[in-house]
């Protein structure tokens, strides 16, 4: 079992979700986040006071998958979120120790699907 965290551009969310659905990956948690990477922020101006390098808005996707879905998930995200510009985001993959479905009490690989 793997746990995937992907940080993407907010405007790519729709495409990424469509691509994931195509590959039959339905379970995903989405959150609004702010952060910065090499892209840096856009300086904002308030009464001519510049707020330099402030944080940028991003979308964070969290997806738990079985090993056989890992490659498909990564492909779906990279292909849909790719623009070629600085700031497209990153994908992090972790080993997932356990997963429990609260409704039924199922655990492990069955619970993820």
């Amino acid at each position, binding site marked *: 079992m793997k746990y995937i965290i992907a940080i993407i551009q907010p405007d790519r969310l729709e495409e990424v979700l469509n691509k994931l659905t195509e590959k039959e990956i339905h379970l995903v948690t989405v959150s609004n986040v702010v952060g910065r990477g090499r892209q840096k922020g856009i300086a904002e*101006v308030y*009464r*001519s*006071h*510049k707020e330099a390098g402030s944080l940028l808005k991003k979308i964070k996707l969290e997806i738990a998958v079985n090993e056989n879905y890992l490659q498909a998930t990564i492909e779906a995200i990279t292909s849909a979120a790719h623009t070629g510009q600085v700031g497209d985001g990153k994908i992090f993959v972790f080993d997932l120790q356990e997963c429990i479905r609260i409704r039924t009490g199922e655990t492990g690989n069955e619970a993820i699907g």
Partner: protein
Amino acid sequence: MLARHRLGYAIQYFQFNIAFSFHGRTLNTILYHHARSIYIFVSCRPELINRMIRVNLKKTHIYRPSIFNLRSIGFFASNLARKLLNKTLNMKIGFRTRACLSVAVVILAVATAAAGEISPPKVDPGDTAWVLVSAALVLLMTPGLAFFYGGLVRKKNVLSILMQCFIVMCLISIQWVLFGYSLAFGPDRGGVIGSLAWSFLNGVGPTPNTDYAATIPHQVFMIFQMMFAIITPALILGAFAERMKFSSFCVFMLLWSTLVYDPVAHWVWGAGGFLRNMGALDFAGGTVVHINAGIAALTCAIVIKKRIGYESSISPPHNLPIAVLGAALLWFGWFGFNAGSALAANGLAGNAFVATHVAAAMAGMTWAFLDWILNGRPTMLGLITGAVAGLVAITPAAGFVNLAGALGIGAGAAALCFLFVVYVKPKCGYDDSLDAFGVHGIGGIWGALATGLWATKTVNSAGADGLFYGNPAQFVIQIKAVLAAIFYSFIVSFVILKVINAMMGLRVSEHEERIGLDLTQHREVGYTVID
């Protein structure tokens, strides 16, 4: 001769000796005592009337001189009056002879009343309706200000700003009816303060007070003025936002209102106030409200010191749309503030309304263009700041200037406040958090001085001409009034702050400041994270 050209003037009692000799000519005079005033009726040739109004009455701040053509008065009354006049004619009238005169006054009162020529001031329904609506409009400015300021602070302090504005509405309303109104507008004491004769609104009822507004009930005038007394201290809180203890805040507001606002309002607007007698022009409160509050704001920012983390790690405004809503409410309410200050539903109110709107529009636009040129983008915060600066600056001038004045004052206000907020303030190193001084202080000073430049009698015959209309003396008077307000407000505000600081402390603890005032001062939060 007398019967054909007899005309009367209503003149305030303390000026009565002036009317007796005019350009070396003796004028026939009748005194009439009514309420707190002595009316003086002067009879003279028609051609002298204009000169008298021009030369004497304006200089001595005679209120609304009423001119009556007495041709219609019955022969009996005029004959009696002539006999009595002959006795008082050529008498040198001073304060010593007031007692002797009062005898004649009583008799004359009967004579003139019999002639049906004096009637008590009448309430005008149109004027009253407009001033009541204006009072409501001005009250709405304080919540407007709350949103304007509230949107500019950090999330954790938004309620503290709203709370401070609302508590001022309650606190000052009560202060005003208990004794504040009497201190500001009550019977004069030496030109500096009103007496306590009108405390608890004693004698402030449905009858108009001719010293202030002859066509609206005295009580309506009082409630209109109350709204100004509320918003003025509320303006100051922008300077010490996000760090003042709520208890100390309440004490400060009460003391400041009593010791600074009420006296300065008396100087400028109160009957007998020394700045009013000097001829300073302040239509709707540029000096009383904006300079006064602006200077107090500067004093607060200096005494209470910077916020923790200023200026490197103070986050940007947490909710600009709310600030824009607040600015919109301020703009809307300002029509009551300025056009209502005509105290009548007339052409002057219309002029003030137009001037107010034009100046705000001009100032907002100027600030937006300056932003565009100097920072690359026009900003929403810049636009509303400019508009408010324009509204501040036009306040003293609204009833004295024409379109050119409104445009000039608006553009100047935005340019000066922009310069100050952007270039001067960061160099000075004090933390006027929401630019209460930068906008209200600087804008107010500019407005008061600019009134001395653009004022013209073609707009308001009770006003004066300014520098651009050939009367540099008015500009000097404006400077004096501005300086008086600046010094008084700075010194007294400073003392009040120091006293409160010594007795109960002004600031919250560092820990409380980091957590935010909403939670530490009020045990509430403005926004929840989950539902």
